[in-house]
């Protein structure tokens, strides 16, 4: 087992890290505490604070990099203050003295928002005289998910606005077994929500999920699994055009539900928005569960961990659970505090790096839009 305390300072018994996340439309700040020694079920990381503010755009609009960066700039210092207060109580000028390091998302993500947050990290790192740790966003999700759920060595399904990956650990790397060949699942849902002009609050995916609960007619959509990879742009295009026909009252025989079991019933029922949401979810999530099962079979794993914003979806969790139980395995998922982008996961993953003696020099602290999960050497694991 890796010794996580090789760089322990004299008399130190615990570590504290501040984490800043702003790779997409959420700005998240968190403070985590590790006691010395291995992280085990008896020695868990402690979440001292985990605050977040989401940049919400009007219905029908996505978030643009510049506007999102402006949002993060407006909130970053206020949120850091709030997180420090929540973690250490009042007396700001002493509270930061407890911190060992400042962790920030170095990528992947949108360039301008990432850059707007790293500026604060650099300033505070110099002001407080503590090192910075650049963290890969995906590694943050994976490590936080493992810590919260106690999943030891799961196949990880990482589903968010910008990513759709199926990942498993081997030889100190989180390796990508399958992923989307075009757009991410969250992006697909967001874009469909824009077509429907439904609210972006609290998130477009959540609102699609609520509509889907009221849907009952299943429409066949393209189903595009390629090995452990999948493709979603064709499905989006297909359902977008269905939705447009529905809005414009254009005749389309796909928009008439076949009532009755044999499909010959004369009672015609019109397909609704709810049915479209329902069918889209059923189709996309079936593909996700299928590639997860493929990865499980491929690496002989029996644990599944779902991370990322789309991981909150109850239907996805339910479908995954049925599949996993069928394989006598176990499923792990977190709630929206940890699923949706947050600062605490950056703090946690960054602190693991810090405890292995890593830190990021100012000159190396440039953020990068492209930063693959398997580029990171996972020093804190050697299993």
């Amino acid at each position: 087992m890796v010794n996580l305390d090789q760089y322990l300072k004299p008399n130190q018994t615990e570590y504290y890290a501040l984490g800043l996340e702003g790779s997409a439309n959420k700005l998240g700040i968190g403070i985590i505490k590790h006691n010395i020694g291995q992280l085990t079920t008896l020695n868990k990381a402690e979440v001292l604070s985990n605050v977040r503010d989401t940049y919400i755009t009007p219905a029908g609009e996505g978030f643009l990099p510049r506007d999102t960066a402006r949002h993060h700039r407006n909130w970053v210092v206020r949120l850091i203050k709030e997180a420090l207060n929540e973690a250490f109580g009042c007396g700001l000028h002493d509270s930061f003295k407890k911190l060992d390091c400042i962790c920030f998302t170095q990528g992947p993500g949108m360039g301008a928002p990432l850059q707007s947050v790293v500026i604060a990290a650099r300033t505070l790192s110099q002001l407080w005289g503590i090192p910075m740790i650049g963290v890969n966003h995906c590694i943050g999700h994976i490590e936080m998910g493992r810590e919260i759920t106690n999943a030891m060595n799961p196949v990880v399904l990482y589903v968010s606005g910008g990513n759709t990956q199926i990942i498993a650990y081997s030889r100190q790397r989180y390796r990508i077994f399958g992923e989307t060949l075009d757009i991410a699942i969250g992006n697909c849902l967001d874009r469909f929500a824009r077509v429907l002009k439904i609210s972006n609050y609290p998130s477009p995916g959540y609102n699609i999920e609520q509509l889907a609960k009221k849907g009952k007619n299943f429409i066949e959509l393209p189903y595009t699994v390629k090995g452990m990879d999948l493709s979603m742009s064709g499905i989006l295009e297909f359902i977008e055009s269905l939705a447009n026909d529905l809005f414009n009252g254009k005749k389309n025989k796909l928009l008439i539900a076949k009532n009755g079991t044999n499909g010959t019933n004369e009672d015609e029922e019109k397909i609704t928005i709810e049915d479209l949401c329902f069918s889209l979810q059923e189709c996309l999530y079936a593909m996700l569960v299928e590639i997860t099962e493929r990865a499980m079979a491929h690496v002989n794993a029996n644990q599944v961990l779902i991370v990322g914003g789309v991981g909150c979806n109850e239907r996805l969790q339910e479908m995954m659970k049925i599949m996993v139980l069928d394989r006598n395995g176990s499923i792990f998922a977190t709630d929206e505090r940890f699923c949706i982008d947050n600062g605490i996961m950056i703090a946690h993953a960054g602190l693991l790096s810090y405890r292995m003696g890593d830190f990021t020099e100012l000159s190396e602290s440039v953020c990068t839009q492209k930063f693959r999960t398997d580029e990171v050497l996972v020093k804190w694991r050697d299993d």
Partner: protein
Amino acid sequence: MSKEGEFTHTLEFKVPFLNSKQATIACKSLNPDPILKPNELEVSYVNENEVLIIKFTGSSDRVIRVAANNVIENLKTVIECFEVFD
């Protein structure tokens, strides 16, 4: 490819801070991020005591305007950090 000689437009900011420590920190916080279009623009950060001097040279006033705007936005975050935490 533009050459340095073609950077006909310039702009200079002098930003005074409370002390030289703050000016140094600001300089080092802004400095690492690369210029997106180095053949159209150059930005240099120097601090003299408590003053941070930012020089923009570029091929058009438009590229300078965009860059200056961005630097000011970043400076705001730096200054806000000082206000709250220093």
